């Protein structure tokens, strides 16, 4: 792997982060009334303080956060804060730090997403490869067809239907939450079992709704790959069908799939946010939903920033792994 490629990819990563931070900085300032200031005034007025006090609190806040400084200085300060993950303090859950709230929720989201994405990607890719393979029994085609159709609908529609059928009507799975009410999150075996039990339905809705798109992509790549000369050559050499399937057809069709994975991480995360809301799952999606409901701006911006950071990192890692999968890229530029 050459250094230029790595540096270029890290550059793109930094651009994404900078872009996200800038949008977060610019948007509230473009609004006719500064929403954060409004919210602060409102928060103080709920406290029953007089009008003069309110203005004073807002002034103190503006001084503390440097809002009376020139814009370019505020911007630099903001970028520096973001670089240190200093997202400020939650307005709705004063005085919790936004970072703490996010860090509490993040493990839930990451484990849910990592698991479901790996399962959906692996299983979907395999199914897609199989339905493109001429020797696959017809029964599999019939079984996979509904899954392909499911891939067109948003994750959360499936989540709503699953929760109604499997949790409300038949009570097989819990209705909502990430763990039983009354238990405290810990790393004990019983808690992990409980958490796993609660995560089956959210995971199932993400896997079922995303499986098909991997299968469709893989099928397309397999079909165009199967017409290539190296497959004919492998057949002529007398290689076994299994070997041609795994080492020739599948391996080559896999590369674009990895690119597609890197490109669709954002889509997956967006979809998962809403699945979390449907289930009241204790991840960042639910945190975001609560923050929007309570106009908790620092939390909203913090969650957005953190998720973009996480996705940027994941894409970066995937892109750096890519040359290892495709030897043709490794020697580029040497």
């Amino acid at each position: 792997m050459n250094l230029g490629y790595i540096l270029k990819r890290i550059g793109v990563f930094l651009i994404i982060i900078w872009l996200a931070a800038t949008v977060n900085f610019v948007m509230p300032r473009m609004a006719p009334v500064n929403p954060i200031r409004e919210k602060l005034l409102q928060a103080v007025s709920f406290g029953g303080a007089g009008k003069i006090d309110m203005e004073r609190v807002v002034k103190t806040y503006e001084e503390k956060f440097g809002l009376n400084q020139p814009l370019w200085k505020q911007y630099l300060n903001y970028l520096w804060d973001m670089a240190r993950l200093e997202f400020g303090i939650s307005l709705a859950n004063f005085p919790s730090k936004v970072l703490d709230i996010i860090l509490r929720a993040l493990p839930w989201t990451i484990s849910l997403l990592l698991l479901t994405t790996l399962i959906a990607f692996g299983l979907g890719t395999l199914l897609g490869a199989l339905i493109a393979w001429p020797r696959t029994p017809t029964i599999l085609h019939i079984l996979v067809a509904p899954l392909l159709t499911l891939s067109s609908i948003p994750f959360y529609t499936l989540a709503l239907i699953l929760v109604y059928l499997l949790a409300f009507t038949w009570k097989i799975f819990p209705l909502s939450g990430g763990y039983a009410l009354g238990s405290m999150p810990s790393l004990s075996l019983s808690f992990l079992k409980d958490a796993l039990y609660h995560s089956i339905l959210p995971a199932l809705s993400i896997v079922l709704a995303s499986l098909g798109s991997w299968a469709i992509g893989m099928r397309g790549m397999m079909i165009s790959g199967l017409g290539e000369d190296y497959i004919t050559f492998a057949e002529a050499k007398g290689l076994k069908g299994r070997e041609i399937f795994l080492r020739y057809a599948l391996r080559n069709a896999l590369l674009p799939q990895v690119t597609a994975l890197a490109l669709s991480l954002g889509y997956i995360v967006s979809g998962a946010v809403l699945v979390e809301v449907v289930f009241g799952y204790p991840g960042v999606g639910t945190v975001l939903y609560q923050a929007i409901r309570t106009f908790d701006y620092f939390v909203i911006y913090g969650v957005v920033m953190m998720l973009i950071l996480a996705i940027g990192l994941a894409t970066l890692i995937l892109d750096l792994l890519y040359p290892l999968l495709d030897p043709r890229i490794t020697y580029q530029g040497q």
Partner: protein
Amino acid sequence: MKALRNHPLLIIGLIIMATLILFGPIASQIVDANGAKVGSAMPEQPPSAEYPLGTDAVGRQLLPVIVVGTPLTLRIGLVAGAIGLGLGVLFGFLAGYFGGWVDTLIKGAADVLLTVPGLLFLVVIATTIKGAVSVNMMAFVVASLAWMWPTRTIRAQVLTLRERQFVMVARLSGMNGLEIIWRELIPNLLPYLAASFVSAVGSAILATIGLEALGLGPQNEPTLGMTIYWALYYTSILRGLWWWWGPPIAVIILTFMGLFLISLGLDQIANPKLRRAT
């Protein structure tokens, strides 16, 4: 009939979409749109002869809500999709035809924006203008992130078309850049343009419903996403009010199935290689 046999997926998809688009205008002739207003009926009534799809917790009748909401959501999708396609065509042509730094800039921007979760960027934008959001504004917000796939698709196609012989011939015969784009490239790109439009509409509808379900939509309009938001807000699932979230979900699923079938059908036209049996 011949068209149906050759492209069954495309035709079925088009029929579904046409039905959904016509559903609102036709049904509103029969159903009283005032029933979509808060307090127009007894709250939390299950479907009955009087309220065909039941009512929600604040007394909106679900049938009128769907009749009013479906066209609103489709309108957001179509307007945003059209803007997305328009921008995509513009950027795609600029990048593909002129190449050089224009290409690097446009392709880079599209790639960077594709990897970020669009919904989250939209959350920040929508949070800022919260409260004052109208249906049209929703369309513009969503359109701001619906142009990347069209840009990529069209750029890639323009790149391959540019080197084809008929474009060379056109250039030699003295056509200028715009003429070549209009008379030689666009006709060849039609299936891709159609596919890009469908995908832009799809991602726009997905984004708008997502934003609305998070509570960032037009608060006083009964769009499909807002209906889901209110259904979640009043915990309709835990209370067994299936007729509340069921209808909007059904319409959403139908919409995405229709778009999906159309895009599969268009894919078969544009990509003969994929035409083998499923």
